[in-house]
């Protein structure tokens, strides 16, 4: 059954890696969102890479799910990078008028990983002092 499918979340060093390989229905998207946030809490990951390179379509629901997740993760001190969006998907999202505030994107996994490492370095060199 479709319902049994779960999207695996892999942790590598300080980052979580999620590769969405199926066309998600809404509940699955919501489940993935909470799954990732739980994983951030559990592992203390500082970044999340979400690979959507095989996603043939991102509609407003999935788009909002992704940007919502980025906001939530950022409150938990983790950055989200969306990786590998297909050109046709990007064109359609813009035409649809969906804005995805707070979303970082990268062309591929490697660039996304570099982005997260960069951010981690900056944070480590300028630690915010506790009041």
């Amino acid at each position, binding site marked *: 059954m479709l319902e049994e499918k779960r999207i695996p979340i892999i942790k590598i060093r300080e980052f979580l890696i999620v590769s969405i390989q199926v*066309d998600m229905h809404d509940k699955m998207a919501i489940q993935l969102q909470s799954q990732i946030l739980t994983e951030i809490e559990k592992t203390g990951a500082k970044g999340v890479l979400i690979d959507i390179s095989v996603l043939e379509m991102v*509609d407003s629901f999935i788009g909002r799910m992704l940007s919502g997740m980025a906001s939530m993760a950022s409150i938990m001190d983790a950055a989200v990078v969306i990786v590998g969006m297909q050109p046709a998907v990007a064109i359609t999202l813009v035409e649809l008028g969906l804005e995805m505030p707070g979303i970082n994107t990268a062309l591929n996994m490697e660039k996304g990983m570099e982005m997260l490492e960069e951010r981690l370095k900056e944070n480590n060199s300028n630690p915010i002092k506790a009041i």
Partner: protein
Amino acid sequence: MLNGANDNNWEILTKEQIETEFDIVKMRGLVRHFAKEKKLGIVDQTRITTAVSELLRNMHQYANGGLFIIEIGNYEGNNALIFTCIDEGPGIPDLELAMSDGYTSSEGMGYGLPGTKRLVDNFEIETEVNKGTKVRIMKWI
């Protein structure tokens, strides 16, 4: 405007009752299949699949589902893939408002109709409060 499907010589490719989220996923796959088969480019395939997804989600969310029909035929001189959503839901009280860009409902999402309209070649809507809504979108092939 939006009469029954039988007033045209359109060929029905699919006629399906939409009840669950799984039906939406299934229909997205089917829409892409037909778009591909009719040799639409990858961007147009994505546009029409996304547009249908938006309409079916509205239907599922606001009207508890409804009927979805995929047809192929001629419309005003254009060969078209034609997608029709018919529900017996609450209807849209202020259609003009719903069709204006930037309109969002209390849940902060609106019906997404202006965006959907931008993704297709023809967009028609008919709605009556407490009766239902019919939306028909087309993509030239």
